[in-house]
C-alpha cells in the first residue's frame, strides 16, 4: 500500500495522479520550448529587416511555436488536470481505463518527441541544414504543403507527428467520457459535478468528434505526399480548399478544446475564493455544452478571404456571432459569483480574474473577425495574432496557471509561495499586454502575420519593439514561476487537506492524496459537499486510514510498448522504408495483446 518508488514505477505507472504529473512536466517542458521559439520570433521582429534567423528557420519557428503550444503544451497541460483532478472531484479511485490512460500519455510524449526531433535530424535527410522542422504553418494549408512545393521531410514530420498525437487525444477522450459518466461517487448526480469536471466532459466530446476529421485531412495529405493522389490538387479537378474545410472543421472546435478546460478551472476557483457558490451553475454548464455544439457550425469564418460567396459568408458570420452569447453569459455569471462575495486575493484568484479580464479582449476582437468585411482587412495580419493570443494566452494560459496555483498543494503537498506568485502574475499580465496589445495596431497598420521580415516604411518598428520587450517580460514571469516551483519543492509550506476551504471532494483527502485516493468512497448529497448550505451541512471527510485494505493494481509495461509502435510506424514514411511499418505494427499489436491478456484489476 505504500507508494512504489524508482524509475520503473514511473514507467509502468497506471495511477492517474502519477500520469497527471507526467503529463504536467512533459507539457510544461514543451511549453518552455514553445516559449523559447516565440522569443526568437520576437527577437527577429524587434527590428525591421531582422537578421537573427534565416527566412527558412523563421518559418519553422512560427510553425513549431503554434503546433507546440496547441498540441504539446495547452492541450496536455489541461490533460494533466483532467488526469489528476477529475477522478478526485468525482470521488473515484482512478480513471475507467488506467492502462489506456498510460498509453495516452506515452503516445503524447513520443509524438511530441517525434515532432521536435525535426530540429536536429536534418543531416539524416541530407537536407544541408540541421533543422528540418515543419515550415508550413500550424494550419498546414495545402497545396503549399504538397510535395511539389514542400519537398523536404519538414511537412512529413508535421503530419505524422499530428497523426500520432491525435491517437493520444482520442484514447484519452474515450477514457474520460466513461470516467466522468460512470465512476462518480454515490449521489454525485450530473448536476452535482464540479464545473471543471463538466467542462472536461464537454471537451472530451469535442475531442472525439473533431479529431477524426483532421485525421482524415492528414491521411489525404499523406497520400498526396507519398502515394501520388490528388486530394488537394487543382490540376486533377480537386481543390486546396478541401484541406481548409476539413482543417477548420477540426480547428474551430479545437479552440473550444483549448478554452473550455480553462473556463472550468476558473468556474471552480472563483467560488472558492469568494466563499460563494458559482452563480448560475446550470447556466454555466449548459452554456458550455452549447458552446461545444455551436463550435461545429462556424468553421468557415476562418475562410472569409477565400471567397465563399455572400450568402455563405452571411450564414457563417451569424453563427459565429451567436457563439458570443453563451460565452458572454459565462462571463456575467463569473462576475456575479464575485459580486457579494468575500474575495480573498490569492494568486489563483488573481489568475482567474486575469483570465476574465483578458479573455474579454480576445472575445471582443473576435467579434470583428466574425464580420466578414472587417475580417477581410484583419485576417492574416497581426490583429489576428493579437486576438488568438488574448484568447489562448490571456485566456487558456491564465486559466491553467490559476489551476496550477489552486491545485499545486493538492498535487505536491506543498503550497507555492504567494508573494512570488503575485510577482509572477503581475509580470505576466503586464508582459502579455505589452506583447500583444500593440499587435492590434501593428495589424491594422498593415503588417501581415507569418513574415520573417518587414519594411521600416510600414511605420510599425517601435510597436514591434514594444511587443518584443513584452514577450521577454512574459519570459521573466515564467522564470519567476519556475523559481517558485523549485523553491517550493524544498522550502514550501506543507499543505493541509484543504488549504483554501474548497467545496469539492478533492479537498477532503490528504495532499498529496494516497495511492487509493479515498479511504472510503464518499456519498454525496449536494453540489458543494464540503460547504454547509441552507439544507445540508458539510459531509464528513474520509478517515485518514482505510478501514479495510484497498487493493491497488500494479503497473504495466504494455501501454508503453504499444505506444512505441506508433512512432515506429511513422518512421516508415519519414524514411521511405516500408519494412519499418511492419515492425511498428508488430510492436503495437504485441503490446496490445500482452495488455489485453494481462491480469489487471481496479
Amino acid at each position, binding site marked *: 500500500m505504500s507508494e512504489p518508488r524508482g524509475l520503473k514505477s514511473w514507467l509502468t505507472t497506471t495511477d492517474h495522479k502519477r500520469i497527471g504529473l507526467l503529463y504536467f512536466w512533459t507539457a510544461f517542458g514543451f511549453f518552455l520550448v514553445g516559449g523559447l521559439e516565440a522569443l526568437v520570433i520576437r527577437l527577429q521582429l524587434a527590428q525591421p529587416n531582422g537578421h537573427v534567423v534565416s*527566412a527558412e528557420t523563421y*518559418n519553422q519557428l512560427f510553425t513549431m511555436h503554434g503546433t507546440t503550444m496547441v498540441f504539446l503544451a495547452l492541450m496536455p497541460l489541461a490533460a494533466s488536470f483532467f488526469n489528476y483532478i477529475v477522478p478526485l472531484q468525482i470521488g473515484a479511485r482512478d480513471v475507467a481505463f488506467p492502462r489506456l490512460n498510460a498509453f495516452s500519455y506515452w503516445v503524447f510524449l513520443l509524438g511530441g518527441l517525434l515532432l521536435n526531433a525535426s530540429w536536429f535530424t536534418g543531416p539524416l535527410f541530407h537536407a544541408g541544414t540541421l533543422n528540418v522542422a515543419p*515550415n508550413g504553418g500550424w494550419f498546414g*494549408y495545402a*497545396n*503549399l504543403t504538397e510535395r511539389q*512545393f514542400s519537398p523536404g521531410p519538414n511537412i512529413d514530420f508535421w503530419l505524422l507527428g499530428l497523426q500520432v498525437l491525435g491517437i493520444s487525444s482520442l484514447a484519452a477522450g474515450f477514457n474520460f467520457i466513461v470516467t466522468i459518466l460512470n465512476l462518480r461517487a454515490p449521489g454525485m448526480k450530473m448536476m452535482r459535478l464540479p464545473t471543471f469536471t463538466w467542462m472536461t466532459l464537454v471537451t472530451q466530446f469535442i475531442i472525439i468528434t473533431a479529431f477524426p476529421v483532421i485525421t482524415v485531412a492528414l491521411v489525404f495529405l499523406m497520400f498526396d505526399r507519398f502515394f501520388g493522389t490528388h486530394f488537394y490538387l*487543382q*490540376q486533377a479537378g480537386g481543390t*486546396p*480548399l478541401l484541406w481548409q474545410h476539413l482543417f477548420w472543421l477540426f480547428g474551430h472546435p479545437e479552440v473550444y478544446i483549448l478554452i473550455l478546460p480553462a473556463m472550468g478551472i476558473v468556474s471552480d476557483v472563483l467560488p472558492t475564493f469568494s*466563499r460563494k*457558490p458559482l*452563480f*448560475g451553475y446550470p447556466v454555466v454548464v449548459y452554456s458550455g455544452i452549447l458552446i461545444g455544439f455551436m463550435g461545429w457550425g462556424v468553421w468557415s469564418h476562418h475562410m472569409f*478571404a*477565400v*471567397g465563399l*460567396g*455572400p450568402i455563405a459568408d*452571411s450564414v457563417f*458570420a451569424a453563427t459565429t456571432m451567436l457563439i458570443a*452569447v453563451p460565452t*458572454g*453569459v459565462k462571463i*456575467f455569471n463569473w462576475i*456575479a459569483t*464575485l459580486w*457579494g*462575495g*468575500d474575495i480573498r*486575493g490569492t494568486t489563483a484568484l488573481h489568475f482567474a*480574474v486575469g483570465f476574465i*479580464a483578458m479573455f*474579454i*479582449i480576445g472575445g*471582443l*476582437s473576435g467579434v*470583428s473577425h466574425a*464580420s466578414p*468585411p*472587417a*475580417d*477581410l482587412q*484583419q485576417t*492574416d495580419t497581426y490583429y489576428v495574432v493579437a486576438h488568438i493570443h488574448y484568447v489562448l494566452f490571456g485566456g487558456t494560459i491564465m486559466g491553467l496557471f490559476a489551476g496550477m496555483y489552486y491545485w499545486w498543494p493538492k498535487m505536491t503537498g506543498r503550497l507555492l509561495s504567494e508573494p512570488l506568485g503575485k510577482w509572477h502574475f503581475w509580470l505576466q499580465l503586464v508582459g502579455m499586454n505589452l506583447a500583444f496589445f500593440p499587435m492590434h*495596431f501593428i495589424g*491594422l*497598420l*498593415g*503588417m*501581415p502575420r507569418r*513574415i520573417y*521580415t*518587414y519594411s521600416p516604411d510600414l*511605420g510599425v518598428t*517601435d*510597436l514591434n519593439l*514594444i511587443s518584443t520587450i513584452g514577450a521577454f517580460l512574459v519570459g521573466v514571469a515564467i522564470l519567476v514561476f519556475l523559481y517558485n516551483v523549485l523553491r517550493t519543492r524544498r522550502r514550501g509550506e506543507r499543505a493541509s487537506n484543504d488549504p483554501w476551504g474548497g467545496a469539492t471532494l478533492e479537498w477532503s483527502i490528504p495532499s498529496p492524496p494516497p495511492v487509493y485516493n479515498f479511504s472510503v468512497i464518499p456519498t454525496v448529497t449536494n453540489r458543494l459537499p464540503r460547504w454547509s*448550505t441552507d439544507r445540508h451541512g458539510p459531509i464528513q471527510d474520509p478517515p485518514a486510514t482505510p478501514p479495510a485494505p484497498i487493493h491497488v493494481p500494479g503497473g504495466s509495461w504494455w501501454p508503453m510498448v504499444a505506444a512505441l509502435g506508433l512512432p515506429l510506424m511513422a518512421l516508415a514514411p519519414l524514411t521511405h522504408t516500408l519494412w519499418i511499418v511492419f515492425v511498428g505494427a508488430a510492436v503495437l499489436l504485441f503490446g496490445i495483446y500482452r495488455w489485453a491478456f494481462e491480469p489487471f484489476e481496479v
Partner: protein
Amino acid sequence: MPRTRLWLLTAALAVSGCAGPFPQSTLQPRSDFARATDALFTDIFWWAALVFVIVETLLVVALVRFRHREGRPVPKPMHGHTLMEIAWTLAPAVILVFVAVPTVRTIFATAGDAPADALKVDVIGHQWWWEYRYPELGVVTANEAHVPVGKPVQVTITSADVIHAFWAPRLGGKRDAIPGRENRIAFRADSVGDYSGQCGEFCGASHANMRLLVRVDADSAFERWVAAQRAGPAAPAAGSLAEQGKAVYSRSACLGCHTIQGVSPGVIGPNLTHVGSRSTIAGGIFPNDSAHLAQWIADAPALKPGSIMTRMKPPLTDADIAALVAYLQSLQ
C-alpha cells in the same frame, strides 16, 4: 481624412512615438471598398469598446468592493437569478443584431461585382511576385499595377502555384489567390497616389518578400502609361552597352523564363518588356536601380530566400551583368 479615426492613430502614435506615414494602414481608406469595411469596423469597435468598459468596470468594482476584510460575515450563498440570466443573455444578443445587420449589408455591398464598363485587371499570384494582366488593354506587367482614379476597377484574382492573398490595404480588403479558382474584388480609388500592399496568405519561404504596389493615376497619366506599356520594347541604340546586354540576354538562360516582347517568350518569371518603367524589382523588395539589379542577376536566392531564379551556370561575368543591367534599364 474624414473617416480617419484620429483617436486610434493618436493612441498608436503615442505609444510608438512614430509619426507614420502608414502606407498600409487599413484605417486610412482610399477607395469605396476600403471605406465600407472601415466604416463597419468602426461600428464594431465602438460596440466592443462599450462592452469592454461595462464588463471590466463591473469586474473591478466587484473586486474592490467585495475584497476580503477581517470580520466580514460568510457571504450569503446565492445560486442564481433567472431574470438576470435572461437579461444578460438577451443584452449581447441585441448588440449582436446591431453588428449583424450592417455586416450583412456590407457583405453584399462589397461582394466584388463592378459595373460592366469597369477596368478589368487579372491578378495572378506567383511564388513570390504578382503578375497583372489587363485583358482589354493587352498589357502585362508585374508587381506594380496602375489604375485610374475615380473609375471602377474589377480585379480578378487567381494563383499560378500555391495560395496567396492579394492585399492593398488602403484600397480594399484581401482576397485569396487560389489555384484553379477566381476571386473578385471591385473598388473605385478616390485619390491619386501609390498604395503599397503585400501577400496576405503564407505562401512559403519568401512570403514576406511578396510585396506589391498599386499606383492610382490621374486619367491622362493612366492613358500615357497604357500607351507606353502597349508599345513594343525599346530597341537599344547601336553600339551601346544596352545592345551588348541584349546579346547577353539572348544567349543566356534568361529567355527561358522571361518574356520580352519579340525577344523571348518565357512565362515563368515576370514579363520584362517594360521592366525599366517599374520602380521596384524582386517582388517589390528592392528599388529598381543598377546596384540592386546587378546583385539580383548575379545571385537572386541570396537576396530573396527560396527564389527559383537560380544562379546562372556558368556564372555571368561582371561585364555581362553590367551590360544586362543597362539593357533592362533601357526597357522603359
